[in-house]
C-alpha cells in the first residue's frame, strides 16, 4: 500500500531529524522541571519591572495566531463551501490542536500557582481579558480535539462516534471560528490596559481588531507553508493549485490589515511616535518586511504560481506577525533604560515546545489519516437524516480500512 510505503520512507528519511526533535523535547521537559523545582525567580530573567517574558510573548501571544490556520481554513472551506481546499483542513486542524495544547503548556509554565489553574473556571471576572482568553482557549482546545477525533476514529474504524462527530461537525466549525475571533482579538485587548506602558507605535484602541486580522493573515500563510513543506519533505501530494487559491485570498486580507493599521496609527494614536529610534527600527522592519513586501510579492501572479516564491511570501507574513507580537508584548513594553532577555532555561523550554509541535505533527501524520484523506468520498453537507450520513460513512469506512 502506498500509505505503508510512505511510512517506511518517512522513517528512513526522517529518522535522525525525529531523534533530534526528541532530544530537544526532552531537554525542554527537563528545563520545565527545573523551573517548577526552583521557581520562576531563579530560573527566569523576569522581575518586578518586567513580569511577562518570553513564555507569554512567544508561547502564548505568538503561538495563538500561528495556530490560527485551523479556524481560518475551517471557515473558508465549510462555511463558504470552497470544497477544493478540503484536503488541507485536516493538517490545519492537527496543527491548530497541537498549537493550542502547547499554548496551554506555556501558560501553565508561566503561572506562579499552576496547580490553581482551575480557578479561572470557578472564579469568574468577565472584566478581565485574561479570563476571556483562558475560557476561549479551553473551549477551542476542546473543539479542536473533537475535530481531531475524526481521523482517530477513522483510523480505528469506529463508526458510531464518527457519525456523531459528523453530525456536530458544522456546529463545531462555526463555534471554532467564532471563539477564535474572540480570543485572537482579546490577546490585543490584554495590552489595552498598558496605557502608558506600550509604545504608541503599537498602542491604539484598535489593537484587538488588528490582532484578529493579522491572525488571519498568519493562518492562511501557515497553511501555505505547511502544505509546501509537507509536499517537499514528507512526500505528500502537491497541492499547489489549492495554494494558489489561498495566495489569491491572502493579499486582500493583508490589504485590510494595512489599511486598518495605517488608519489607527495616524488617526487614533495619541502619544509620540518617533521618540524611540530602536523601536522605530523594529516597527519599520515589521511593516516593510512582514506586511508590504509580501503584499507586493503576492500581487504578482508569477509569485503566486511559483511554489518557492509563494512559500517565501508566506514566510515573510509569518515572520511579520511574530515580530509584531514580540513588539507588542515585549519590546514595545520595555521602559527606556530597562532591558529584558530570556534566560537559558526560558529559551530551552520554548525551543522544547516548538520541537514538540513539529515532532507530534510528524508522528500524527505518520500514524493517522490526516493526509490520506479522501474528501470526495465523504458527504460534507449538513446531514438531513441519519440515512444519508450512514451511507457516506459506509463508503468512507471502507476507504479508511483499506488505507
Amino acid at each position, binding site marked *: 500500500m502506498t500509505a505503508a510505503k510512505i511510512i517506511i520512507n518517512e522513517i528512513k528519511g526522517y529518522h535522525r531529524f525525529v531523534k533530534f526533535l526528541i532530544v530537544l523535547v526532552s531537554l525542554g521537559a527537563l528545563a520545565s522541571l527545573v523551573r*517548577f*523545582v*526552583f*521557581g*520562576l*525567580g531563579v530560573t527566569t530573567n523576569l522581575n*518586578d519591572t518586567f*513580569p*511577562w517574558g518570553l513564555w507569554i510573548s512567544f508561547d502564548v501571544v505568538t503561538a495563538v495566531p500561528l495556530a490560527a490556520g485551523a479556524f481560518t481554513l475551517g*471557515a473558508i472551506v*465549510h*462555511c*463558504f*463551501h470552497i470544497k477544493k481546499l478540503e484536503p488541507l483542513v485536516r493538517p490545519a486542524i492537527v496543527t491548530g490542536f497541537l498549537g493550542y495544547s502547547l499554548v496551554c503548556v506555556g501558560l501553565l509554565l508561566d*503561572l*506562579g*500557582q499552576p*496547580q*490553581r*489553574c482551575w*480557578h*479561572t473556571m*470557578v*472564579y469568574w*471576572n*468577565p*472584566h*478581565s*481579558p*485574561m479570563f*476571556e482568553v*483562558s475560557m476561549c482557549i479551553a473551549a477551542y482546545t476542546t473543539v479542536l480535539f473533537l475535530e481531531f477525533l475524526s481521523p482517530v476514529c477513522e483510523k480505528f474504524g469506529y463508526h458510531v462516534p464518527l457519525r456523531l462527530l459528523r453530525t456536530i461537525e*458544522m456546529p463545531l*466549525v*462555526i*463555534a471554532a*471560528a*467564532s471563539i477564535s*475571533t*474572540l480570543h485572537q*482579538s482579546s490577546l*490585543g*485587548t*490584554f495590552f*489595552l*490596559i*498598558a*496605557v*502608558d*506602558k506600550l509604545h504608541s507605535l503599537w498602542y491604539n*484602541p484598535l*489593537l*484587538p481588531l488588528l490582532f484578529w486580522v493579522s491572525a488571519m493573515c498568519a493562518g492562511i500563510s501557515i497553511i501555505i507553508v505547511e502544505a509546501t513543506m509537507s509536499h517537499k519533505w514528507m512526500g505528500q501530494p502537491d497541492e499547489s493549485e489549492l495554494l494558489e487559491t489561498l495566495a489569491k485570498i491572502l493579499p486582500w486580507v493583508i490589504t485590510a490589515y494595512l489599511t486598518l493599521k495605517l488608519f489607527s496609527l495616524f488617526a487614533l494614536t495619541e502619544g509620540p511616535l518617533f521618540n524611540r529610534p530602536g523601536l522605530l527600527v523594529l516597527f519599520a522592519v515589521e511593516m516593510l518586511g512582514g506586511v508590504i513586501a509580501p503584499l507586493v510579492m503576492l500581487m504578482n501572479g508569477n509569485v503566486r504560481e511559483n511554489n518557492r516564491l509563494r512559500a517565501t511570501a508566506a514566510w515573510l507574513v509569518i515572520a511579520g506577525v511574530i515580530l509584531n507580537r514580540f513588539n507588542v508584548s515585549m519590546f514595545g*513594553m520595555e521602559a527606556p533604560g530597562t532591558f529584558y532577555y530570556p534566560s537559558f532555561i526560558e529559551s530551552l523550554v520554548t525551543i522544547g515546545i516548538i520541537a514538540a509541535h513539529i515532532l507530534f505533527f510528524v508522528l500524527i501524520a505518520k500514524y493517522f489519516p490526516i493526509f490520506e484523506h479522501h474528501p470526495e468520498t465523504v458527504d460534507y*453537507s*449538513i446531514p*438531513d*437524516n441519519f*440515512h*444519508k450520513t450512514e451511507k457516506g460513512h459506509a463508503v468512507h469506512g471502507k476507504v479508511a480500512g483499506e488505507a
Partner: protein
Amino acid sequence: MSEMNQDFNKSKAFLIDMTKCTGCRGCQVACKQWNQLDAEKTEFFNGEGYQNPPLMSEHTFTRIKFRDYEKNGQNEFAFYKEMCMHCNEPACASVCPVGAFKKTKEGPVVYDAKRCIGCRFCMVACPFGVPKYEWSKALPLVRKCTGCYSRVKEGQKPACATTCVSAITYGDRGEMIKEANRRIATRPEKYLKKLYGAEEAGGTSVIYLTALPFDELGFKPVTKRPLPSYTWQALRLVPGIFLTVGSSLSLLSWFNHRKERIAKEEEQRKSGQAPKEES
C-alpha cells in the same frame, strides 16, 4: 462599570503632604512591623541619595524616595512616599482573571492570596508599578500594600498613618481633597497648585501635595481616565461579536449547504434514483 457605583468621597483616603515629610522613614518601619515583612539588606547611596531600599518589593510595601534638588542656591531634599494608590477603579482588579483584587467600600484595594493563580497580569496593568512578586519562592504570590485593611475595617488608621507625626492625614476622601485645597489656598507660595491622585487613573485613595513639580519627584504621568474602561470598551463587545460571527457563519453555511443538497437531489432524480425526502 456596573458594580462601581460606590461613593468615593465616603471611602477613606491618604493625604500625603510631602512638604511636611522629614524623611524619617517611620512609615516604612511601621509598615514592616504591622505586616511582619522581612528586612532587606540595604545600602546608602545605592540609588539616589539616602534612599533605600532601591525599590519597593515583596518585602517592602512602602518606602520613601529621596530626591536632591537645589532651591535658592541651597541643596535640599524632596521626599515622596511610594505605596499602592488604592485606585477608585483599580486596573489590577479589572484584569485579574480570578478576581483576586477587590476595591473595598472602605477604600483599600485588597488582595485575596487564596484565589491568585500567579499570572502577573495585575503587575502589567497597574499604572503605578505597585504589585510585586515573590520571586524568591517556588510557588510565588503577589504582594503589595494592603491599605491596612484589617485595621481600617475596625475603624483604626493604617499603621503608616498612625506612626507619621505630620505628613500623613487619613480620612474620608472628599474631606482629604477639601483639606488639600484649603492648604494650597492658605499657603499658595509653599505648594504646587496640583493634587496628584485626585484624577490620576480616574482618581485614587492616595492624594499627594508637594512643593516641587511632580515629575521631578519621580511621579509617573498617568492618564486621567479610569484604566478598566480602556479594556472594557473592547471587552463589552465580546458577546455581540460572538453571536454575530456565529450566526452569520451558521446562516452562510446553511445556505451554501442547502444549495449543494438541492443540486445533488436534482442529480439523483435525473439518474433515476428515488429522491430522498426533504427534511
